């Protein structure tokens, strides 16, 4: 019986079932397990750490309210990251920060790239424009499709696809091993 075991020994789905019955310590264990993933995603999407933490808290509270909707079809982490990403996108749109034509200041694909920057996703994401960073993080970090991202951002699907493609091209350069840095970048459609 799940109730006789400590929360730390339970699977996410069991913890979610307990949380759905009002067991707040069980939900606290889920927060402990997945808090970093949610906060990390929001930071990767471009949120300042304090704002990311605020939105992550809101996301977990929203997840607790809607915990009965989680049926274990995907992972709990992916589910709550999607909630957090949507909350952040809503805030981002309210502040009118989405400029489909915006480009990053760092447009140079060449130049010196440090070894650390090649393997650090967080650093590599900083070289993307806010729109590219948002679209790539939404599609690869929050697991939403291009169409869902376009709907969430209230932007044309084609615009989102081009942001993802350009973002991936830049990331490929930054994250590629030194010997692969000259490879020709190509587009991506797998998340559409």
């Amino acid at each position: 019986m799940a109730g006789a075991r400590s929360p730390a020994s339970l699977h996410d789905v069991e913890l979610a079932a307990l949380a759905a019955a009002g067991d707040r310590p069980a939900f606290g264990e889920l927060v402990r397990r997945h808090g970093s993933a949610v906060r990390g995603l929001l930071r990767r999407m471009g949120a300042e750490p304090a704002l990311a933490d605020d939105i992550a808290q809101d996301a977990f509270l929203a997840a607790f309210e809607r915990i009965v909707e989680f049926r274990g079809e995907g992972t709990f982490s992916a589910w709550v990251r999607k909630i957090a990403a949507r909350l952040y996108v809503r805030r981002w749109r309210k502040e009118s920060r989405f400029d489909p034509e915006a480009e990053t200041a760092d447009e140079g694909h060449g130049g010196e790239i440090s070894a650390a920057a090649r393997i650090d996703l967080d650093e590599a994401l900083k070289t993307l424009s806010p729109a590219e960073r948002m679209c790539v993080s939404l599609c690869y970090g929050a697991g939403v499709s291009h169409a869902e991202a376009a709907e969430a951002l209230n932007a044309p699907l084609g615009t989102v696809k081009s942001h993802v493609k350009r973002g991936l091209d830049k990331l490929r350069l930054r994250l590629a091993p030194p010997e692969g840095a000259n490879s020709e970048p190509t587009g991506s459609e797998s998340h559409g």
Partner: protein
Amino acid sequence: MAELDFEMKLDRMFNEPPVLADGEAFARMVELRLDRGWNLRQVAIGATGLIAGLVGVTQVLGSPLLFEAGKATQRNAAALTDGVTGLVRAGENLSALPFGGEAMWLAAALGVMALAFAVTRAVEEFQ
């Protein structure tokens, strides 16, 4: 193929949560907000129940229901008293009557019927 590999690599990198030193403090903050929300909800439910109860009591006190119920109770008590008095009188007069045992049983049955009638009236009054 290289593109697919890169996207899989990117998925993996996004799925690797960063190590954040204040993870426990973050979890405690969420639990605190959950508890606060829960307490607020309980207070709200309690306050709503109290207000609803007060409104209900005010409505009942303001309506003529209690007054009518009191009057009906007085009427029924009087009817019951009359019935009992009649029975007592009948008992006192039993010895003076020139009847036998059958007459006594008949009188007792009539008394029961009177009592039943009083109860029926009482029920009708309350309905």
